[in-house]
């Protein structure tokens, strides 16, 4: 990977740099380590001083309490529904549109594509008030569709898939044309299977994006039973300073962070590739 790592005579410099970065990484992990440590402490002890975190007793009670009391499970479920909905929707719409923009000619296509690209420049904040109004008029707030649908209008996936379809050699389609395949068959049987890496990338990004989305679910879901985990975790920390359950709150944070962290660990390769791809294109 590195261009110059093997060049003779740079060993000592490299070691020094590595040592520094390891040190920074340790500092970087401190906040999470601290949170983790606190999550294992009885709330009563933390009330007196958080310094007690450095010595026993430790307990799993905070985690057990999550299963007993909080809405965390309901929120996790909501997040799962919303994230899967957004991901599937984006994959279907972007794949179809990406193929269309890259390969299936029709009058006015290129102008429409430019207009769609312009959509990338529109931030969520510029449309969020009108969107809220629209869903209010339809009395749809506090439903899954209301939380999911706005995410499907993002042009990012369309752009990504269009680029990916364009990169596939055109003679593959042409061979399929000569093989008497219909338009949809060329899309479905020949090209779509070749975009699986891009689907994976886009899927993971959409999933994480929807899971972590905060502003829109915060506005649209006002009933606690419709909160996503992200909004739910916000609602638990509003009266933080007076909180009597610091350890419990930390346990909730760790627990809520686990799903994305697992996704991250499993799909790190794709995530890294996606970011790298975005940089090069």
């Amino acid at each position: 990977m590195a261009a110059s790592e093997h060049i003779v005579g740079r060993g000592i410099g490299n070691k020094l740099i590595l040592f520094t970065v390891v040190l920074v990484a340790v500092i970087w992990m401190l906040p999470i380590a601290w949170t983790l440590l606190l999550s294992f402490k009885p709330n009563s002890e933390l009330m007196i001083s958080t310094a007690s975190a450095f010595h026993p007793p430790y307990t799993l009670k905070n985690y057990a309490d999550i299963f007993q009391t909080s809405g965390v499970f309901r929120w996790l479920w909501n997040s799962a529904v919303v994230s899967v909905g957004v991901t599937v929707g984006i994959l279907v719409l972007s794949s179809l549109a990406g193929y269309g923009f890259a390969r299936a000619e029709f009058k006015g296509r290129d102008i429409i594509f430019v207009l769609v690209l312009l959509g990338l420049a529109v931030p969520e904040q510029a449309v969020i008030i009108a969107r809220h109004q629209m869903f209010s008029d339809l009395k749809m707030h506090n439903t899954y569709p209301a939380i999911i649908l706005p995410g499907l209008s993002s042009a990012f996936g369309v752009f990504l898939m269009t680029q990916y379809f364009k990169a596939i050699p055109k003679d593959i389609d042409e061979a399929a044309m000569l093989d008497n395949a219909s338009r949809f068959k060329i899309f479905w049987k020949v090209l779509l299977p070749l975009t699986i890496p891009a689907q994976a990338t886009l899927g993971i990004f959409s999933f994480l994006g929807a899971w972590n989305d905060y502003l829109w679910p915060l506005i649209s879901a006002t009933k606690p039973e419709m909160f996503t985990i992200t909004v739910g975790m916000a609602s638990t920390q509003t009266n933080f300073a007076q909180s009597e359950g610091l350890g419990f709150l930390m346990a909730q944070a760790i627990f809520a962070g686990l799903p994305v962290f697992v996704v991250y660990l499993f799909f790190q390769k794709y995530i890294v590739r996606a970011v790298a791809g975005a940089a090069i294109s």
Partner: protein
Amino acid sequence: MSSIELDSVSKRFGSVEVISELSLTVHSGEFVAFLGPSGCGKSTLLRMIAGLETVDGGEIRIGGERVDNLPPGARGVAMVFQHYALYPHMTVFDNLAFGLKNIGTPTEEIGRRIEEAARILEISHLLKRKPGQLSGGQRQRVAIGRALVKDPKAYLFDEPLSNLDAALRVRTRVELARLHQQTRATTIFVTHDQVEAMTLASRIVVMNARKVEQVGTPMEIYGRPATEFVARFVGSPAMNFLTINLKDRGGFASAVLGDGSVIETDVPINILPSGELRVGLRAEAIRVREDGAIPGKVEVVERLGDRTHAHIRLADGSTLVAEDKGISQVQPGDSVRLAVEGATAHLFDADGLAYHARQ
């Protein structure tokens, strides 16, 4: 097998006309090569026949049926692409079967045809693999197999050998020739390599700058090039061109070179136009010989084993390439004499049109 007829077809990309009013007939069972430099329009023409480019004017008929409005799949032709265009996610078997399935061929029939094609192309052991697991040569065979199983009205090859290494290219060339001798299938073969065109085709269509320069058998193209372009493009090393003055030699043209030496050609003088003329000589028509008439100085010697090419500067400063035997004694810097076989000389006018001896 079917004939392919092009009837004054035209093609425009935007405002640029890339093919204009081109007519050509490829007879049933014939092997025709479209030969020309890149950008000459030969691939576009092939793709128009396949249905991968629209036709802006004229008609294309395959087996007498007009096809230029039909989608590619309905034309009954098969194409072998330059980069093979195999479906990367399908096994070799599925690659071959895809086109047959799409037209509803019964499963047993598909199996039978693939088995047969695989045996002919010696790829039976590869049927379960995916293209990514094959070598370049194997992919090439699969690509040919995909055409073969369809039993098409005509085969279209788009520079199919250009991605193979030199040794494999020669071998595949021979195999293609053999395959055609056995199947007698109508074939159009696009290439920029004159050796491929010469060795494979029964007729060559030489194209340049979006128009046809000459249509003829390989030996016609080589022996009686219609234009300077054809003369330069076909044959290696390229034909020598020297500016001359004309002298009448009993009805035949004698070419007087810049240094005063004379080449006696068999070209009738009465067919020649007035104005500037050049003589065209292939290297094998110019021999290094002690009794030669034309003096020159050797600048570069290229030894090819079976023969030697000597790059020679004449007294008037013009240069040419002469041929000598394999174990040639010539060295750079030598003064040599050249003997020219005037009977194979061609004359070219200022517009690049060629004039040959009577046949």
